[in-house]
């Protein structure tokens, strides 16, 4: 069984709540923090009965400092003190009005790891978790970390994820589509409580339409949980590599974690997925990465000698590829990736 280390970054002033060696689940809280809230001002000069400008010299805390409840903010020569009423960040002093700007710390908030595994390192800035499973890296994505069970919702790697495939059974799931999903399908997925979507590609226009819908929804007070999208091949109507699609089908129903912003998918208790190698050799199974063969799988029959001028006019090293969809074409080697099935896969 393969494993990878996932790093959970911690904002400053977080307090880890796990120790090295601890086993954690995706929903577990790994750390807590009290986030600063909106600013409040308190009178300093008034309390010290000093002119506003002169009171600046009485500050004992320096701007940027975190103060605990009851800590002294300012003290004058006669021993009069200004105490902060609650834990806060001291952000500045206004010499015209004699006030201090504070950002009180809010209620404690959990930092959820969204991964299952064993904690291997705890530091003030990050917690490392070793995940027993495989990682699939996408080329783009968006959205916060989510987790749920994997559900393949299309029959083939080149099929479009349609709105009709999203139903109540997909709620809380990470749904795998094929070549694309329309804005309508993404909006329905979000509305049905789908946690995330993994696609071969998506049209930029569909993604922007979907994001615009989400923005309007937030403006009218519609909330809901996080939602994440990861693209494995690129933008446009691009099918998923059939090898990776088949591998995901083999892990249907398993627990996964999806990190949209990092374009990363963890599949727990899974063997290694088919991997990619940049420089393909004759005989390799390959996948195209650019139009007109983006996402298409095939066999690199032979590499042409010297430089070949492709239809754009660019002279480049190229190869003859027989694609699985029946097409045959000459493709720049820079636009091909060899697929490698791990031993025993």
């Amino acid at each position, binding site marked *: 069984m393969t494993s990878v280390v996932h790093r959970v970054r911690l904002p400053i002033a977080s307090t880890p709540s796990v120790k090295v060696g601890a086993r954690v689940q995706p929903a577990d809280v790994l750390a807590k923090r009290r986030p600063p809230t909106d600013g409040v001002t308190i009178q300093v000069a008034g309390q010290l009965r000093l002119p506003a400008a002169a009171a600046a010299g009485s500050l004992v805390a320096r701007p940027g400092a975190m103060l605990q409840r009851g800590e002294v903010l300012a003290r004058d020569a006669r021993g009069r003190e200004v105490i902060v009423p609650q834990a806060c960040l001291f952000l*500045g002093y206004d010499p015209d009005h004699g006030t201090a700007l504070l950002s009180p710390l809010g209620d404690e908030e959990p930092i959820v790891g969204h991964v299952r595994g064993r904690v291997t390192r705890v530091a003030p800035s990050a917690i490392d978790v070793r995940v027993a499973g495989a990682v699939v890296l996408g080329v783009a994505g968006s959205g916060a970390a989510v987790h749920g069970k994997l559900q393949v919702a299309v029959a083939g790697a080149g099929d479009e994820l349609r709105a009709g495939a999203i139903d109540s059974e997909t709620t809380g799931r990470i749904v795998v589509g094929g070549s694309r999903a329309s804005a309508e399908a993404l909006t329905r997925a979000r509305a049905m409580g789908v946690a995330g979507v993994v696609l071969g590609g998506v049209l930029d226009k569909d993604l922007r339409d979907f994001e615009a819908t989400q923005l309007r929804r937030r403006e009218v007070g519609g909330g809901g949980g996080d939602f994440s999208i990861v693209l494995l091949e690129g933008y*446009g109507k691009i099918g998923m590599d059939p090898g990776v699609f088949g591998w995901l089908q083999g892990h249907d129903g398993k627990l996964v974690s999806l990190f949209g912003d990092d374009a990363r998918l963890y599949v727990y208790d899974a063997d290694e997925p088919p991997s990619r190698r940049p*420089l393909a050799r004759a005989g390799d199974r390959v996948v195209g990465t650019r139009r007109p063969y983006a996402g298409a799988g095939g066999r690199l029959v032979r590499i042409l000698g010297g430089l070949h*001028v492709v239809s*754009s006019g660019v002279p480049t090293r190229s190869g003859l590829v027989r694609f699985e969809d029946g097409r045959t074409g000459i493709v720049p080697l820079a636009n091909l990736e060899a697929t490698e099935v791990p031993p025993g896969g």
Partner: protein
Amino acid sequence: MSVAIDTELALLLDTGTAWTKAGVIGRVRGRWRLVAHAAQPTVWGEEELLRRLVEQLAATADARLTGRFHELLGRSTRVECRTPARAARLAVVAVSRELSGAAARRAAEAAGWHVTDLVTFDDGRTLAERVAIVQSAEVDAWLVAGGFDDARSARALEAAALVAAGRRPGGPPVVWAGSEALAADVIGLFEKGAATAVGNPRPDARREEPAELRVHLQGLLRRIVGPADEERLTPVALPRAVAALALAAGLRVLAVDIGATSAMRVLGEPDGTVESRVHARGGLAGAVLLPGAAGRVVRIEVDAGDEPAVADLLHNLHARPASLPQTVEELAATQAAARLLLASLVEDGLGAPLDLVIGCGRTIAAAPHPAQAMRMLLDGVRPIGVTQMAVDAGGLLGPLGSLSDAEISEGLTLLADDLLVPLGTSVVCRGGEPGRVAMRVTIHRAGWPAYSPIEVRTGQVQVVQLPRGQEAELTIEPANGVTLGAARRSPRITATATGGAVGLVLDGRGIPVGLPRRADDRRAVVASWRDSLMREAPPGAERVA
């Protein structure tokens, strides 16, 4: 009796984030010439690159050396430069978005930093949101700006306090580029040695003086991304080569490099001084970040396809920077994106007219047709006046710049024939009324009959064939209200044009290029400009659009 044959080779390598370019220099009939050249995605590795070079050498070099090229390349002199593998990240915290924030951001981007966050007090966020951004930022340095030099702005100090609240002790360095009067207070907010004060880029409401900040940030960036072998970093090496070239030729030289991820402009003066700017996200991968990029590409390029397809392409350039355009549409859209990136690279002006513009980077220098490279440079840079245009097709300038000063000059001299591929000369004017004559150009060439003056109308491009190695004397008569950039004392301007793969381009489209509003008219005009540049014409004939 057998005679041992040997040769001396030098390997020039330019390793970019996405593509690596290599040239082999060898002696050909007593002169140093470029004898092999290859470019490939960087991830393919050096072994593959050397294999390609050996193949080329085996096909062209002395047959008695066959079988020894691997060994010869192995012991060849290596001259190399590289682009830093990752962009250094910086967060800007400033008082105002338009003044201190914009000035600080511009200086940071021009110094090669990737500005990940810009937090200002007028950014529409709540204080809690600002604190949250600062506390979760993952950066290599902080830049704080605000306040004019003659004032102790409480808001500027608050900006520094925000960074002090979000930065871990012992964390990334802090640069204070705000009010001089607050420097000591700001430095006192951080542990000893953490913060440095530099000149305020907005010392008052009317002036912007970013030079000191930019130079400081360039130095800081080099310490962070490439503490060793600094001279081998492309952002250091390319300016050194351009400076030497400008000094040796006595020309004002602009080199522009649109890479896969970053972009660079280098301006070399005839006295050998140089000014360079690196935009960490100014390369093709960053085109998607330009405001309205897809729409603008479609507007300036008729072959690019529809806007949704261009939007997908721009994202894919970001996702797969080492891939190549395989269709005509994708190439056209990529080159149009490069023109937009070039325009944004020079948007703050270049001062006096240029003598020579050099296009570097694969998108420009390895364009399939020289006219495409000319078009990108002409439309992107809009060099007013009479300017020689060339490309660094071999990718040799960067590696040469990593040598010592004396060796750079020597290298420029030795490789004079192969260093740059001349595209020709452009004559670009500004002003004039649509449809009216903008300038009359008379071309005198030794051994050729004198032409009657060529009339270039406003909004028109004409190309006259002038092959590489040929020169022509130009007499240019700009119409009233039309300028070639420099002050003139006579109604006629004389200049020398040198030939190249495209020839002499007479460009009356103005600066910036004016486009018709109606989509059909715009498409027709843009297509005519493209055809005018691309069309093959018999020597001496002009092509008009």
